[in-house]
């Protein structure tokens, strides 16, 4: 089923926002095809009428009370920022 070509690798890389050099696309396509070909053995398994697992934990989602218990820590939030100005994170502009 899987037949990942160079163009597909480039598309996935773009979706994942990872720059991959042109000459690396082909070898990566090979690796991904190998792995996907291997995982496709799952096709043998009959999963009719099987619900996909939603969590291994047999529990209900706990709800938090609507109380303000956090925030007011601008310095902590920005502490590790590569660039912060005037209390904002600063990033290169989006180029359209």
């Amino acid at each position, binding site marked *: 089923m899987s037949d990942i070509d160079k163009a597909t690798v480039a598309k996935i890389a773009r979706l*994942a926002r990872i*720059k991959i050099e042109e000459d690396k696309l082909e070898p990566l396509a090979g690796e991904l095809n190998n792995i996907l070909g291997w995982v496709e053995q*799952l096709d043998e398994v009959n999963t009719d009428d*099987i619900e*996909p697992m939603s969590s291994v934990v047999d529990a209900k989602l706990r709800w938090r009370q609507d109380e303000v218990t956090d925030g007011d820590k601008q310095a902590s939030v920005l502490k590790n920022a590569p660039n912060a100005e005037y209390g904002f994170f600063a990033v*290169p502009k989006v180029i359209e």
Partner: protein
Amino acid sequence: MTDLTKLTIADARDLLKKGDITSRELTEAHIEAVEAADALNAYIAKTPEMALEMADKADAKIKAGEQTGMTGIPVGIKDLFATKGVHTQACSHILDGFKPEYESTVSQKLWDDGAVMLGKLNMDEFAMGSSNETSYYGPVKNPWRRGDTDTVPGGSSGGSVASVAGFAAMGATASDTGGSIRQPASFTGTFGFKPTYGRCSRYGMVAFASSLDQAGTITRTVRDGAIMMESIAGFDAKDSTSVDLPVPNFEAALTGDIRGMKIGIPQEYHLAGMPGEIEALWHQGIEWMKAAGAEIVDINLPHTKYALPTYYIVAPAEASSNLARYDGVRYGLRETVQGGGLVDMYEATRAAGFGDEVKRRIMIGTYVLSAGYYDAYYLKAQKVRQLIANDFKRAFEKVDAILTPTAPSAAFAPGEKSDDPIAMYLNDVFTVPASLAGLPGSSVPAGLDANGLPLGLQILGKPWDEETVFKVSGVMEEAANFTAKPAEWWR
């Protein structure tokens, strides 16, 4: 005086209590051992000043009669756990320079009990690997060698096992997504314990695959594992998947009595081509269990062979999303492109920050979730995962615990499998099924292979029945009487 680094946690606890030793002495001995173990590359950040400060506090606590199991015990922390103000990078370049403003719940629980932090431990980048060769900080060496040849410590908790096996920590935190505690424990003759998914909080633990990640421990003995697990386990409201159940006294479960207990032997784990000595060790384990009065029951886990492919869809899918936050905006590495914009920054940062294996998994994960493929891969895998969990559920109607080998081989040499991702993935063939089902499990050192390398046996239990896993592990440990130690070539 005896070498304090050779003590078990349980012994040290008793000596601390009696006042025969102080945490400061214990800690100083370990700081020295950490320094002497540089060749293992187990520590990627050392915190000796902090350790001594914590040791003094622990000594005060002991004096005040407030000692608990881990008070004054020097441990190492896997780099996956956030430690406030201290290097926390999951051994990835993309978290370059990151020092969190918060503490993970697991490490906080240790500090609350008075444990002492020696430093941060090496690991596979974002816990993705089975040999600790994907760390940005270089590979970890296994204290155990094949003659003069280096071996890998297993992964991803390579630094955790190497530090404990190499007497550079009394215990270490670790994390298991598909076997990252049990497989390296098997490779290093240590005791690795992974609790039920939801037993330990994931708060502050850098996420790899959220539905699988679970914290656990590496120690040299089963009792030490029980003491340390009891410290780090417990409900945490900050993690929605943490389950609100009381933490049992794990140490009390070590009664040594498994008479009448039913131990399951999954027939599907007899892999074709598995080394004979692993089959033999497994058989030996079965004999030990019988001798201790347990009843051996053959069981079937029919979907076992599909566990690895399932895992290699689910885990990368979750990882591709979990690792999207590493974008160079708020922390860690940022690579900008001359004249480029935001998207160029993302692409350059993530290209430079992630290693090959991480990229590979992000790519696979992105692909299996993408439009047109979701049903065929991700949804299919989550259905098969349910079948795998059902297999265990059915088996546990008949047995109390399951016994298998931990890994299909002993530690291998660096580079031996790193060119073939699938060969590397096969390391986790015995550990992944239980991870997919969220079950508690351990790896107990049980013997040596022909090359003198350790081999472990895996014990799996029912959800929330860590006590049985500990109990059986304790009996196994006693029967195996694993006393071999690596030659301390690194000193």
